[in-house]
């Protein structure tokens, strides 16, 4: 017969998976760069309100976060349903804010201290009473720059 006849079987050759690691590594590097690790786990509900006219928060290391809201379901038994403040990893009281601000400031360089911004991440169901208590505490501590962190979107229903 013809001399061009293939020898062996007619099976399709296996697809080479040698480049699969490359693809996966590419994805991996993307997520490694884009990732921001959560440094504290939330013990409260944190459903932020939405606002349309927002500004982006600048440098990540110049922001301190104060969370507030009602305790999440798994902590309800221990802390009740009243809205609470969370600083770093634990639930705190209004009086702890002063110490928290001082501790945050101590970790920054001196010239960075006036640029510190406090981001208030407050659940939308929280009462304004708690929010203004936080604000008064911040005023006492001399930490005047704040940011009401919101979701993007129109606030009008």
């Amino acid at each position, binding site marked *: 017969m013809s001399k061009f006849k293939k020898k062996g079987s007619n099976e399709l050759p296996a697809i080479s998976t040698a480049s699969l690691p490359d693809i*996966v590594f590419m*994805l991996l590097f993307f997520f490694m760069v884009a990732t921001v690790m959560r440094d504290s786990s939330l013990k409260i509900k944190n459903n932020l309100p939405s606002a349309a006219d*927002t*500004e982006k928060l600048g440098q990540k290391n110049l922001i301190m976060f104060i969370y507030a809201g009602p305790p999440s379901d798994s902590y309800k038994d221990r802390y009740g349903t009243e809205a609470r403040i969370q600083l770093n990893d634990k639930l705190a009281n209004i009086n702890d804010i002063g110490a928290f601000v001082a501790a945050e400031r101590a970790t920054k360089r001196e010239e960075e201290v006036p640029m510190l911004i406090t981001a208030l991440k407050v659940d939308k169901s929280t*009462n*304004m009473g708690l929010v203004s208590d936080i604000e008064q505490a911040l005023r006492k501590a001399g930490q005047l*720059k704040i940011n*009401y962190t919101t979701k993007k979107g129109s606030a009008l229903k």
Partner: protein
Amino acid sequence: MAKRSAPEVNAGSMADIAFLLLIFFLVTTTIEVDSGINSKLPPDIPPPEVKIKQKNIFTVELNKNNQMLVEGDLMEIKDLKAAALKFIDNGGGQSAEGERCDYCSGERNPESSDHPTKAIISITHSRATDYETFITVYDQLVSAYSELREKLAQKLYNRSFKEMEATYDDSKSSEFKSEKLKDKIENIKKKYPRIISKAEPQF
């Protein structure tokens, strides 16, 4: 002696290792950048005694049922922005320096605010007001100021205020931290200063 070639390393498990790492970062990742409304608290010193005319104050009150009173009348939140615009841009009198507002497009009603630099928006709220309502109201007021600044920027410099601010902070643009642009931005901010006062809740 026979030439021995080095045995090939099997790279088949490389993908598994990479996948493991990938999944770890996928789970821990939060991509979004936080954004919100910036604000500045007043310093903790007793405020100086200044006499402010009642017509220069735009009072917004929120009660415990999340209803809003504007200048003593019940109002829907969707109408707030228009009312605030009308109040700020009124320009009925003179500024502290005795200048008339030549960039205002308001009605120049002598019963309303004198000058954008003198117009004060005062928010009072109850302790039981929802945070969401407050943010909605605050957002409306802030966006009223943004709209006025935007309009003025278009009129004076023929460009958008948002774009000017973005250009100023953009390290790739030719006007990054440029003094000239900064002056323009400051000029607009000075003409429409965002004066929103927030009183401590009394009830």
